[in-house]
């Protein structure tokens, strides 16, 4: 899985490839306004994790994200990147060390794709050869052909532009990425594909990521941790997706995640992760599902076929056990954390997540 990474040769910055981020009592109040846009926001994002900021419009999630790279000034409190305050930094220099992806992408229409990707390396004064090599690496990383480098943004599809936006943000191998509704302007089918693609990419690059969205389903899918904000920029809950779905902190969170939060929670775990019953001569017409099918899909399959059971099979279509309706319902009753611990990748593998 190890890919070449020209950006790490000399180190664009003194940062490791991912750095922890901490919000410490952060406040944003615009001049002339009585109310705060962000109010006493505190949370920590361990290195290499995706933290999703989610909430209704006007909850200050984008404002919170934009304070990290000083696009918006912090009124009070502090934000620490790798333990160092961002407040003392020269903003343009700080921003060159933080990847930045926005919904409308903002590719430079007058520059080729290669020039777009090379923006930050050029600002950092890399030599031509190193930039050229890095551009090719990044096009590979986002699964686009190298000859696309000579095209202009106007010649690309929306999905391709989005990938270039991510490649451009990753160019100098920043320890932190800020992503503001990066898939918000993409149609639902391609959005799902880009989300999956990005999660695979993240499993490889393991950046610390602050991801803003208004869509709770996207938050649950993308986040290692979710910060739910309410109007006035107040943190309602900061936890893993499973914990938020199983134990919403209050009525606001419960409403925001939706009455179907049980189903959403089932979507987080797979048949392969639960203890299955032994298979003993199920009727031939019992539906079958692979181990990597989600519990939600398994439930749906049972409902649709009118069965109370489902045969779980491995990649060779050999039965490995049986999941029943009671078994799946039981999963939701189990204390939080026992089922869905290794939701995706980074958290358990890097070992950097402290138990909640």
């Amino acid at each position, binding site marked *: 899985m190890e890919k070449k990474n020209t950006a790490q040769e000399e180190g664009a910055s003194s940062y490791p490839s991912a750095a922890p981020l901490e919000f410490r009592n952060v406040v944003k109040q615009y001049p002339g306004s009585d109310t705060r846009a962000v109010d006493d926001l505190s949370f920590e994002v361990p290195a290499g994790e995706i933290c999703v900021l989610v909430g209704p419009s006007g909850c200050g999630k984008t404002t919170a994200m934009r304070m990290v*790279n000083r*696009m918006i000034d912090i009124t009070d409190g502090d934000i620490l990147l790798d333990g160092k305050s961002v407040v003392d930094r020269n*903003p*343009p*220099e*700080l*921003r*060159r*060390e933080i990847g*930045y992806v*926005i*919904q*409308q*992408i*903002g*590719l*430079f*229409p*007058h*520059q*080729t794709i290669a020039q777009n990707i090379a*923006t*930050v390396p050029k*600002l950092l004064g890399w030599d031509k050869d190193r930039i050229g090599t890095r551009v090719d690496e990044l096009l590979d990383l986002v699964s686009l052909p190298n000859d696309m480098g000579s*095209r*202009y943004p*106007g*010649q*690309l*599809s929306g999905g391709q532009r989005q990938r270039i936006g991510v490649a*451009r*943000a990753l160019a100098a191998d920043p320890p932190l990425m*800020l992503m503001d509704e990066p898939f918000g302007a993409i149609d639902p089918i391609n959005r799902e594909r880009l989300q999956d693609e990005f999660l695979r990419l993240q499993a490889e690059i393991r950046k610390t990521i602050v991801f803003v969205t208004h869509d709770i389903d996207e938050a649950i899918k993308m986040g290692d941790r979710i910060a739910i904000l309410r109007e006035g920029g107040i943190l309602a809950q900061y936890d893993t997706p499973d914990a938020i779905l199983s134990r919403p902190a209050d009525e606001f969170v419960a409403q925001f995640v939706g009455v179907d939060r049980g189903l959403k929670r089932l979507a987080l775990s797979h048949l392969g992760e639960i203890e299955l019953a032994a298979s003993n001569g199920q009727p031939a017409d019992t539906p079958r599902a692979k181990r990597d099918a989600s519990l939600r899909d398994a439930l749906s399959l049972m409902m649709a076929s009118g069965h109370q059971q489902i045969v779980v099979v491995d990649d060779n279509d050999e039965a490995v056990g049986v999941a029943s309706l009671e078994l799946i319902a039981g999963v939701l009753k189990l204390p939080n954390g026992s089922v869905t611990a290794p939701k995706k990748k980074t958290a358990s593998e890097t070992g950097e997540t402290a138990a909640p």
Partner: protein
Amino acid sequence: MHAMLAAGGPVIPSFGKSSSCVQDNGAFCFDWIRDNWDSTFQPALISHLKLTVIAVGIGFVLALGLALLAHQRRWLITPLTLVFATVFTIPSLALFQVLVPISGLTVLTAEIALVGYTLSILFANIITGLREVPAEVRDAARGMGLSDRQILFRVELPIALPAVMAGLRIATVTVISLATIATVITVQSLGGPIFEGIQNDFKTKYVAAGLLTVVLALVADGLLVITQRRLTPWARARRA
């Protein structure tokens, strides 16, 4: 030139023999144009070209400077736009005459007026070009760590270039056309042979000078189009 007011037939410099085309006051007597190229048309053309290049050059520099200033201090945009829009409505004949008491019957007077027109056109176009830079492009540039100066020179101005070039084309063609009027304040241009030809009712002279003005405008415009295509290959690159 008032001395040349003619009574009756065409007054032709008496170089002795003249062709039948000239004697018949033909619309386009090539032999006469060829014979008088060095004495009449070439100097007028060169002078016309100089007037144009200087006016557009100075006008461009001033317009760019003012547009960049107004780009930073937004409140300047409205008053400047108003002033230039007003300047542009003044008839050139009147503008030249208004300036004569101040700067005399000089090239300077002609240039002041022509620069004024260039400025009016270019300022509006540069401001529009800068305004049309998409907000998300500016935001991405800032978010990646470009300084304000880098954003201006690497992002905003290049993206505004098609609008700037469009302005340059309009300004250049306008100035080439208006420069003929500079003749009324005795400044040499292709307007000279046009006025003389009309006053003397000598068709070849004003037709040739008029055509030369048109050709000059077309060539200048063509060169600017080629320059624009070279400078902005991205503007034509669209998804097939």
